[in-house]
């Protein structure tokens, strides 16, 4: 058993994780309700004019398809460049793998860390670390200006980076067995990890919900024949020759 599990009791870690979940829910709710984002979303959906109606089963199937083929693969980012998509996938799946690993560790394995969990936790952490670091060099200010000007929008990616890095530091330090050292790093880590969730109303964490909701919303619009903002793609007789000039 790792020295980490001996510093604080199991119930503490379990309660801490539950607290993080609660803070997340409150954070998302605050963001969506107090800033009236949910109201806006529902308002937009109310004025759509579907040309056909789809059965519930069709809609559900479309939702699953969107989640599995679009959101899970960050397909939307394919148009922005392969690097952007790749770094995003690393962060997304790294987070998912790390989160599931932690949940399993403390709720299924009572704080024990079987080899599989140890591997998945490290894998998740490494994916987040790599993805976030890569993304920091990809984002517009750095790519265009070679300057690391950090703004409010960078809170999420920076905290992902810091936490994944700190997680590895904690893990490394835990092998020393020095109680005071491990306890200090653990305290730092718990505070730092909390920041990731406490800052939800002010960071880009919430895009997880909104990008997903909007992607699903657009797919359902397409399913039900809601007219989009854009003109429909052109049919051409040959290159450079549109079939009809005006409609």
């Amino acid at each position, binding site marked *: 058993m790792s020295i980490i599990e001996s510093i604080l009791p199991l119930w503490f870690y379990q309660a801490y994780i539950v607290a993080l979940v609660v803070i997340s829910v409150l954070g998302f709710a605050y963001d969506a309700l107090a800033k009236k984002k949910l109201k806006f979303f529902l308002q937009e959906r109310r004025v759509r004019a579907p040309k056909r109606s789809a059965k519930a089963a069709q809609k559900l199937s479309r939702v699953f398809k969107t989640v599995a083929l679009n959101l899970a693969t960050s397909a939307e980012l394919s148009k922005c460049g392969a690097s952007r998509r790749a770094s995003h996938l690393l962060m997304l799946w790294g987070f998912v793998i790390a989160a599931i690993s932690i949940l399993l560790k403390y709720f299924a394995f009572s704080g024990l860390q079987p080899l599989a969990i140890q591997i998945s936790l490290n894998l998740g952490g490494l994916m987040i670390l790599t993805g976030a670091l890569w993304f920091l060099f990809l984002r517009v200010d750095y790519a*265009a*200006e*070679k300057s690391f000007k950090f703004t409010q929008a960078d809170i999420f990616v920076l905290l992902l980076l810091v936490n994944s890095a700190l997680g590895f530091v904690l893990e490394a330090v835990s092998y020393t067995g020095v109680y005071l050292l491990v306890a200090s790093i653990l305290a730092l880590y718990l505070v730092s990890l909390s920041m990731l969730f406490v800052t939800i109303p002010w960071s880009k964490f919430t895009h997880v919900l909104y990008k997903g909701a909007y992607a699903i919303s657009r797919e359902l619009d397409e399913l039900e024949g809601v007219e989009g903002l854009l003109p429909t793609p052109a049919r051409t007789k040959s290159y450079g020759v549109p079939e009809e*000039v*005006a409609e």
Partner: protein
Amino acid sequence: MKNTKRVDCDILIVGGGMAGCGAAYEARYWGRKLKIVLVEKAHIERSGAVAMGLSAINCYMGMRWNENTPEDFVRYVRGDLMGLVREDLVFDIARHVDSTVHLFEEWGLPIIYDQKTGHYKREGRWQILIHGESYKPIVAEAAQKSVSEVYNRVMVTHLLLDAKKRNRIAGAVGFGVRDGDFYVFRAKAVIVAAGGATHIFRPRSVGEGAGRTWYAPWNNGSAYALLIEAGAEMTQMENRLVVTRFKDGYGPVGAWFLALKAVARNAYGEEYEKKYVEEQRALYGNYVDAKPFPTCLRNDAMLREIKAGRHPIYMHTEEVLDTKEKEELGWEDFLDMTMSQSIVWASQNIDPKKRPSELMMSEPYIMGSHATCSGAWASGPQDIAPKDYFWGYNRMTTIEGLFGAGDTIGGSAHKFSSGSFTEGRLAAKAAVKYVLDHPEMPEIDEAQVYELKNKVFQPLENYEVGRNQIVSGTVSPSFIYPNQGVIRLEKIMDEYAGGWGSLYTTNEHLLNRGLELLLMLKEDLHRLAAQNFHQLQRAWELHHRVLTAEAVIRHTMFRKETRWPGYYYRADYPKLDDQNWHVFVNSRYENGEWRIFTRPVYHIVPW
């Protein structure tokens, strides 16, 4: 302190618009082994006045089909500019422009054909219709494949003269708009193909709508200021351009008037364009007989109607859209080059098939490529130019090795896009010849470069230090922001130098007062503040605008007549005076002093 990047090359092209791209292509054709560098403050793919595209090419002779001769073109341009043009430069553009247009067609620009004749479909005598949304990307592709290197997002702020030979070009300096690096370009020849000037005079729309100037808001007169500062001789800076376009959106009227044959009438349904011919003849002489009727005189007629309160002036689109093809042509005219006019229709529920649309005269602009020809005084082509107009290399300014093309060159009106590209080609071939004749690299004055580096970044320093005086906000007693300076400039020029607010009218008293205020603004430029590199770009754009405006005021003061009514009026000299003023008004700015003088106008094509 910022990094300094040094770039040495044979030919430096400043500006990647139509003229710059023409220069790039031609320079590589003639100078296969030369290092050719193009520097552009935005991104070459969509930079310059043709960013959105164009629905017509307004300068095409059609010599292959015996449609026009270059002599015809000279007569047309001369008439439109009330007699004062550089006929050698105009002839030179006319005889070459057809090859430019045929090259564009080969590159992929869709030109519209007349199904009956098999010729290009004419919009008017000199104009042909195109599907021109991608005009700039196509031309930029050719330029990118020609030069050794394109520096996007680098704004050139000053030209450099040779340390030893004061009248020879040595290069240019500027800064990176994204990363703030300082650039020192050294070149054996420099071709300035930068933009003419908007936002010198107050525009008609003053909120967000200030962005909807007819000519691009990012054209800030660098073509003029860079050369004026370096001491090059300038010409016709008083010849500002006012255009009549669809109101507010400034959509084009060419296709409507020429191809669709729409008619403009005042609010009472009267045609007015030729209403005042005899009054105009008494004031401006027999130029009123030029065919077609000169652009400025058409403006003059409209202005008389507006002063008499007989506007809105309407373009009766509803009378000419009787077929689907005509409706598509009308819409495409806007969608290829001024989408904002379509937005005016959509937002105000105007269906052009059902109702007419308002026309209005714009605020004044300073350009060299349109129905106007402000710019540098340049040498013409050796085989045509009169002795006085030739000094060694075509399109070379009075500074050795410094060439110009497009809006940069004065006296050479009605070039438009194809003519500007053509002028770029002409300047580039001459520049290659110059480089081969003068292969030595010029010498940079390092002390001057050091001084310029500090000067270029001064606005950033002014902000960082000066902001400590005030809590927050935009009001400081010790600095102004670039946009505050632009607004002051626009007010000065509008009220004193004949902007739309003064009904385009000025006099010597107004000009003197305007100059006094302008010179104070010029002094205040030392106290411009920039919060970031974007604002630093705006700061230098303002510098260039102010210097251009100063040239405009001084030239306007010097010419004691009203040569181009409808562009501007000298209320104290309301008549055209061919006896005394059938000349070019030229200037040089050296050591902070202005010399204004005249040069003869030679007519080499018979009337």
